[in-house]
């Protein structure tokens, strides 16, 4: 499925098939941080106006699920990894 990246909203993202989601994160996602949770590795990306947390069963090999949110609360577990200078650039 081709995606006009300028039109991607949280609803658009949720409707995409798996490969389109990972491609969009790969091309457009801005890395925020990484954490471990219940045996999974989670990586948080900012994608335009929302956030996508990708949970890996095997890091960078096997994706378990995506968690998307427009709320900045999703940043809370990653706050210690965020560099203010980089946010200003974004």
């Amino acid at each position, binding site marked *: 499925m081709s995606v006009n990246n300028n039109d991607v909203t949280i609803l658009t993202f949720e409707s995409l098939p798996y490969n389109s989601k990972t491609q969009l994160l*790969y091309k457009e996602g801005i*890395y925020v941080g990484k954490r471990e949770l219940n045996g999974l590795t989670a990586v948080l990306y900012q994608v335009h106006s929302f956030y996508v947390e990708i949970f890996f069963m095997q890091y*960078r090999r096997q*994706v378990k699920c995506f968690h998307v949110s427009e709320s900045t609360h999703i940043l809370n577990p990653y706050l210690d990894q965020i560099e203010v200078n980089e946010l200003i650039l974004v």
Partner: protein
Amino acid sequence: MMESMYKKNIILYADDDKDDQQLVQEAFERYASNVKIILADNGVEALDYLNSLLPIEPAPCLIILDINMPRVDGKEALVQIRKTERFAHIPIILFTTSSQPQDKMFAAKHKAGFITKPIDGNQMRLIADIFIDHCSDEIKRSIRVAQ
């Protein structure tokens, strides 16, 4: 032992993320008879390794630098490496978690490649060959011969 090490192509990989270090090492496993990966946890370690090389020791055929690293990040390490005549023309790749246009431009300005870290297994399986494609033709042949 030293002699046998010299027969391998050396790839220097600097990244503070141990998981990514492991993934890249695994990606190169099928080329293990021809490639030796030297790991550094940050830019300082990468620069220390290069600066400690004796003239008779081979320089890496490829240097892979994560951008976000403590002490000296990948971009600063790239600038420092390019200042040294011996390493000025070695292929270098900035390997990073985000595909930021300003980082791509920085890489191009300093004659380095730019690769975003894979997100899933399909992309990960290709990564070693994508790295190798940045090497000279002679090195590519010597890495890929008789796997």
